[in-house]
């Protein structure tokens, strides 16, 4: 093995270790959150939908969400995200189709109802309520599992 290959392999291992550590750190933080924040919500959804890489920071995930117009510019990274806004991020990121009013007025208001209709949200699907980190992980986990089984 020449020296170039050794350096590249080491670099790859370090990068993988870093990204693994990054996503694990976010998940650990999310698990104990009573109210999921915009930053963590954007990171979870955008990495799960492979729009951004796991190595991205929360700030970069938030910026990506804002650039695509799925998160309003004025929203702060540490502010709690609502169930509707989180659902809207999921529907946009995974390019999911919605009901009649979602098709006409795509918005957080109809996104959480759509996910409830599709069976992902079993309790209160009110768009304006906040969700915990565990609920957010469970929701995104169901989406990823169902889409990977198709």
């Amino acid at each position, binding site marked *: 093995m020449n020296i170039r290959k050794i350096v590249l392999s080491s670099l790859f291992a370090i990068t993988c270790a870093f990204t693994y550590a990054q996503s694990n750190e976010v998940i650990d933080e999310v698990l104990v959150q009573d109210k999921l924040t915009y930053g963590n919500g954007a990171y979870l959804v955008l990495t799960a939908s492979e729009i951004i890489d796991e190595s991205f920071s929360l700030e970069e995930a938030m910026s990506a969400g804002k650039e695509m117009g799925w998160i309003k510019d004025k929203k702060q990274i540490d502010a709690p995200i*609502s169930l509707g806004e989180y659902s809207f991020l999921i529907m946009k990121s995974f390019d999911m189709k*919605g*009901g*009649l*009013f*979602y098709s006409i007025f795509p918005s957080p208001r*109809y996104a959480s*109802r*759509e996910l*409830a*209709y*599709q069976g992902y949200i079993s309790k*209160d*699907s*009110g*768009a*304006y*309520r*906040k969700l915990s980190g565990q609920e957010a992980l469970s929701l995104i986990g169901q989406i990823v599992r169902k889409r990977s089984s*198709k």
Partner: protein
Amino acid sequence: MKKILLTILLIISVILPVAAGDFGITIDASPTIEYDTGSTFDISALTYTAKAALWGNTAIGENLIAEFQGGYTIEDDRIFLLELDQLQLGGSFVMAGGSGGFMAFKAGRLSFSEFSGKVFAHTGDGLSIEWGLPLMTISAFGTYTGLLQAPSSTIIMNNTDLDASNNSTDTDSERVFWGPLASPRVIEGVTITFPEIIAQQTIIISGVFQQDLRQDEDLVSGDYTLDTIYAGFGLVGPIPIIQSLFYSLYSYGSTGWYDTNVILAGIAGGSINYFIPTFLASRIVIEGLISSGDSDQSDFYEGNTSGFSTAFVPITTAPAGVIFTAQQTNLFYFSGTYSMKPFANSKNLMLNNILIALKGTGFFRTTTGAISTGGVSSSSSSRYLGTEINLNIISRLLSDVGLSMSGGIFLPSAAMDSTTPVLQASMSLSLSI
């Protein structure tokens, strides 16, 4: 009253979108065609109901939730009606000490019901409390019905109530928002439930009390105020031998008094439910009900002429049929329903949600006395009244669009004045905004 309701509507429609709850608008439209095959078909066979409702809910702290629903209804025989369906504050609290007990309450305008729904199930203004203990659950409610609008009421216990119900279908253009108020009554209920006490069997004991707050002089000639008491017993649970087979039984004995007459009557019924989830989410339901009648009645309401009045008088009507809508008095019926989701295995949600149900019901009277809908030949002594068959197709096409279609036929027996079959078809479209 009107100002209060309008103020409440205004406050809620402003506050709810700001609060961390949810709100929305539902629109339901239901045209129906009913046609007696013995008559000439004309446009009067078509009736319709359309309702637009605003609803909302918001959590208040950890334990409380406020809910609201109010709507505007248009029907073919009444121009408009604005009604407050629900305005309630509810809460639930875990009892201290780790006993596993809980206390829950709801107050305001809400739906009240005793456990079977065959004696009383209605909206009203009042309070409902539930107290969960390790061995039993005790629930109690008290409600007043005099602030409801008469067209929204299904409490018909004498001819005055019947007249009010018929007169509430008013096309007077001035009645844009309000109908007359419903009869002022107070209804209280107490239920003690022993959940899964022996072999997963749940025992229910219930008492319901109804007082008419009017005076005799407020009623139509020949009517008297009627106060009633009901004592009930129920049994619910799985049938251990066969998996997914469940049953429920209920019975009520009742007494009451009007003028010099005393009521001694009863009702009993039950159902067996069999679920076959692996075969197109199938469900088979067999249901029956028997209620006492009085063969010496001169009139269906308060018409006793001899001895005790033995006709069972429920507080609210709960018809088993869609075309034949006799209330549960002097009635025996037996029905079988099979429902299934023909596309239960489809990954397409629109198809997956389609439910088809076929129901057949045979109707009999328990005595040769009158039934609530009339139409029985006075010369007939037959107990058999007819058979109704209904087919329903229900689907939630999209998350915010629902569509259901139903068709039915009632085949009257020779005991009825008209023996020609009656057909009915209806469609219901609902939008959730």
